[in-house]
């Protein structure tokens, strides 16, 4: 019995390591440029989807966050590189406008720094 439990445990541990630390593909979406503005929607549920958004440098970007999760983890979104912070309402879109001036990769996170999203700014 103990041996079976140990075996199951080892399989579980292996699965945890693979599932959480393995190299899984993440989604990247480029913002849609409409004249002088670029727009992209981010779904907030168990993380930020798409996990990476690609923006064009120099064009103001409208990021619309749609928070579907009531978990307090997602109460806030912090974009320190762009000096923005917002309290996200549940099931209502919330739009933030940022100015991606410099090319580079920037991270943003939830208020508790548990979930992260990426913003790739390309020239």
């Amino acid at each position, binding site marked *: 019995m*103990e041996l079976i*439990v*140990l075996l199951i*445990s080892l399989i*579980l*541990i292996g699965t*945890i*390591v693979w*599932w*959480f*630390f*393995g190299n*899984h593909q993440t989604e990247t979406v480029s913002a849609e440029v409409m004249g002088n503005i670029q727009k992209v929607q981010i779904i907030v*549920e*168990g*993380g930020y*989807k798409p*996990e990476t958004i690609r923006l064009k440098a120099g064009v103001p970007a409208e990021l619309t966050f749609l928070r*579907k*999760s*009531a*978990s*307090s*983890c*997602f109460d806030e979104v*912090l*974009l*320190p*590189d762009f*000096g*923005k*912070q917002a309290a996200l309402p*549940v*099931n209502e879109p919330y739009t933030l406008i940022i100015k991606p001036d410099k090319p580079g990769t920037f991270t943003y*996170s939830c*208020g*508790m*720094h*548990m*979930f*992260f999203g990426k913003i790739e700014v390309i020239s």
Partner: protein
Amino acid sequence: MSKAGVKKKFSLSLRQTFFICLFFTLPLLYMMIIGMLPGGDLTALVFATPVILIGGPRFFRSGWAAFKNHKANMDTLITIGTLTAYFYSMYALSRGEHVYFEIAALLIVFILLGQVFEELTKGRASQAVEKLLHLQAKDALVVRNNKEVRIPLAELKVGDVIIVKPGEKIPTDGQVISGESYVDESLVTGESKPSRKETGDTVIGASINTTGSFRFKATKVGGETLLSQIVELVRQAQTSRAPIQKLVDSISHYFVPIVLILSILTFNVWFGLLGASVTTALLYAVTVVVIACPCALGLATPTALMVGVGLGARRGILIKSGEVLEKAKNIKTIVMDKTGTITLGQPVVTDIVGERNTVLSIAASLEQQSEHPLAKAVLEAAQKIKLDAVKSFKAYGGQGISGVVGSKKSFVGTADLMRDHNISIPSEIEKKWQGLQSEAKTVVGVASGNTLLGLIAIQDAPKPTSKSAIALLSHQGYKTIMLTGDNKATAEAIAKDVGIDQVIAEVMPADKANAIVELQSKTPVAFVGDGINDAPALATAHLGIAMGSGTDVAIESGDIVLVKNDLLDVARALKLSKKTFGRIKLNLFWAFVYNLAGIPIAAGVFSSLGLTLNPALAGLAMAFSSVSVVLSSLLLTRTRL
């Protein structure tokens, strides 16, 4: 609901969910502490199920959504903890064994309670910015087409003439064009004493007029005003990232999966190695899952930053980012600009030798005609003295002036000017003359006819608080250096007066940055300047502290901006930075210690000493570890600056 409207899901607020769950949990609590209710374990199932169904989904959904994204968070831990306790109890019920429904329900109630508290305290932590915005006036009384009309703030334009009555809030930034009053600027600048305003003076929006009445012309409106700029700056600072956060971010990525692995290991050690029952091993494993609190780690930095930056903003100390806090803690040397930073920036009469009113009256009467910078200081000192008309005014370049005041030819000027006009200087006065000059003051003689009436000494005097501020900085262990373009004698006299350790004089404005680079090769340096001609030095120094009565340049060029023009705020700003950074470290320390100590206790490592934890209590500890971090950050507001 409109036809086009999106169908909204019915959802309970956090507090509603908490109270409903609490209602169903009370009987379970009764069973846990006092005794069985009729129906026994089945009653426990009946009361626990609504808690799982009503309070659980917010955690289950989030945990599952995160899991699908290959992520894990606090909700993952709560989901695994509660569902394990609940389903194991169902299994146990079917086999007539001991059930743990109360643990599943209590866990959810305790965590909801923690979140309610967190919501309350976090709200308080982020109030500083909102408070600043509430300072604004709602409307303004303006003159339009020669009529006085009250208009909303949004309609205000640059150039509008605004009337401010006693006790009213000043609606926007501008310049006084008529009238006078004392204005309380403490809400914006932190300056406690009301400052006098008369024609030509600038006023700051959101400050409060006291008893007088005046008119001013709006120079800035809307987002351009000082208050708006401060609010924007504080918002950005509060969202900024402190470098220490990077460490925490990398830990939180591994945290939850590692806790899950530890929980599996705990089960195996108890069940496989120590021969405990499945129930006991499972309880330890569940306790490990629910005690771990990644949130406390995540909240440690941002909440302290938010409170510290907000506290500074209310005192006119604007810390521009979290990074500044880490820079400030390393500073050993404080380099200060002289003019306008240590000194008032404008010459004033410091000493008068001879009969005060006579000396000032003659000097000021003559200086009325002069355009020399020192004339302003003399006229300022003679404000309450009646001045005479001057005939035959004459200026002697670099030496002084003369003219007929009353019936006698009078002079104001250097010793040479006096000698050239056969005015003798008694040896006693000559001594005083030299004495004042050695204090780096500009001294002029005042004569009427052939008689020297007295002397006037003029100096760009130190601000009233400079001496105590430098003493405070020295006491705090900083080395103080004055960096100035002025000549050595003047600079050293001022330095001696205020107690500065070292003087670097005769440095051209463009070379100030180079001087900073050289000093920085030895120790970390903070530079304090007024932001107007010091921008390069402010940017070069490890830490730039801009003082500038809220000028745009100062706001842009400093790491820390002091709204008030007071050197004491340098000491306060450094203290606040250190305290805030210290609080971040303390928060992180406790969050780490909590997890490092809590997990082994939960796993039953100390059970031989009788130290074990019930999973529900572990959940309570977990929920309140986040609350305690937020409360610890809030304690920063009690810092005395």
